[in-house]
């Protein structure tokens, strides 16, 4: 990552009043809006951390072994390409902001100034979802939990910096649970029959960041002679 391109420093602080009540939108749903970041880099390093039964299919295993042998070299984020879903959520130093509106939930990332859209207006997945870096996400509410499902993710993305691979069959389910005002747990389910023998789930904790300004962190590999 081009350190010189780090334009804005984030002044972080865990929000006070962690136990304060979870805010709600006018329709009665929990309001996930705010700036969040992972409480650690544990799952960015290894998304399977703490998950006992992750069995990789042979083809994916070979790719994973190769990436591990290369010490994680070659991952797309080295070249300023997006980490993809779910990895782009997981870096402790890269917070993101949720803007929850009636028909869509938007996630704005400090990293690369990228955004995700999770459509909650009841639309189905498109018939022809060409693979993209961030996929196509639709969401619905299950009680107080926002359930986002994402498909159409390019095989180029890594599930984590450790190199866990996925195929074009990947379906990521994220269950966003804002348990307190200052804390959100997200259950991330990886369902990819081509790469793993069965779906597996990890729960990643995010904390609210009391910062009104997300800032931006731009990445440019060829920035050595860039100056500006």
């Amino acid at each position, binding site marked *: 990552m081009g350190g010189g*391109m780090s*334009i*804005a*420093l984030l002044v972080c602080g865990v929000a006070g009043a962690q136990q304060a009540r979870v805010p709600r939108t006018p329709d009665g749903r929990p309001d996930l809006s705010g700036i969040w970041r992972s409480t650690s880099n544990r799952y960015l390093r290894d998304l399977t951390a703490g998950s006992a039964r992750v069995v990789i299919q042979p083809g994916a295993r070979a790719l994973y072994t190769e990436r591990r042998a290369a010490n994680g070299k070659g991952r797309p984020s*080295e*070249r*300023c*390409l*997006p980490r993809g879903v779910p990895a782009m959520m997981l870096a402790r130093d890269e917070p993101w902001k949720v*803007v929850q*509106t009636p028909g*869509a939930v*938007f996630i*704005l990332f400090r990293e690369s*100034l*990228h*955004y995700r*859209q999770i459509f909650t*207006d009841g*639309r189905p997945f*498109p018939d*022809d979802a*060409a693979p*993209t*870096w*961030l996929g196509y996400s639709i969401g619905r509410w299950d009680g107080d939990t926002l359930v986002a499902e994402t498909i159409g993710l390019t095989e180029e993305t890594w599930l984590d910096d450790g190199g866990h691979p996925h195929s074009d069959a990947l379906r990521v389910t994220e269950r966003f649970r804002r348990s307190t005002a200052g804390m959100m747990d997200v259950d991330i389910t990886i369902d990819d029959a081509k790469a793993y023998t069965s779906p597996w789930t990890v729960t990643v904790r995010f904390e609210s960041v009391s910062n*009104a*300004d*997300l*800032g*931006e962190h*731009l*990445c*440019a*590999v*060829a*920035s*050595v002679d*860039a100056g*500006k």
Partner: protein
Amino acid sequence: MKTPKEGTPKKGLVIAIGVAVACLLASPALAQWVNVPQAGTPRTPDGKPDLTAPAPRAPDGKPDLSGIWQRPRGSQPGTGGADGIGAGIQVLFQPSGEAVYKARGDSNGKGMPSERCLPHGVTKAFSVPEPFKIVQTPGLTLILHEEFNHYRQIFTDGRRIRERRAPTAFGYSRGTWDGDTFVVDTTGFIDNAWLDFRGHPATDALHLVERYRRRDVGHLEVQFTIDDPKAYRQPWNVTMTFDLLPDTELIEHICENERDAAHLVGN
């Protein structure tokens, strides 16, 4: 995946823009455009969006600018061309601004930040053929650009500008309403920026004012006032119009110019 189209000479730039437009027109690209009828869109009896119906209103009574917008094909000012967004406008440079402008022209636009996938900045991002989406919410208006998948925040909650904020490509924007016109004031820009593909410069002294007016359902007009006393002897205005792109969704466009850059710097 679209073809990277930055970092081209003037003539090449025109060709590159043409390629971008061709990509938009090409049927494979069109096939990817999702058909998502929006419930709130007024329609004519045959079910088509009524693009000349009165502009919708937000719950607070202000015009709702939300929607996906795109520059009309062949519209002026063009993205490239000899004079960029300054075409047909008298732009009075400061000597230093003129020198930068000339140097960028002489080098055929080489070195513009978007070559390295860095943000275009406000006016340049609006000048491309790719659409953008406005999401108007209470307290915050978002602009989601299809190009590079970059976003911009416009705060409408009356917050003050934080001092000692690091400058950024899109600056720090606050919006207010002047009747039915959404007025956005932006400062806090990085220095040595590009206002367009032609290389009109802007400095960290830039104060950009945008005035958004949704004439009806299908038409949006934005007037930009470029007030940068370090680069120009007097403020100048550019107006761009945009057409609503109804019942669809943005296509993801990630800039991949950096894809092969790693080996160039010996990583």
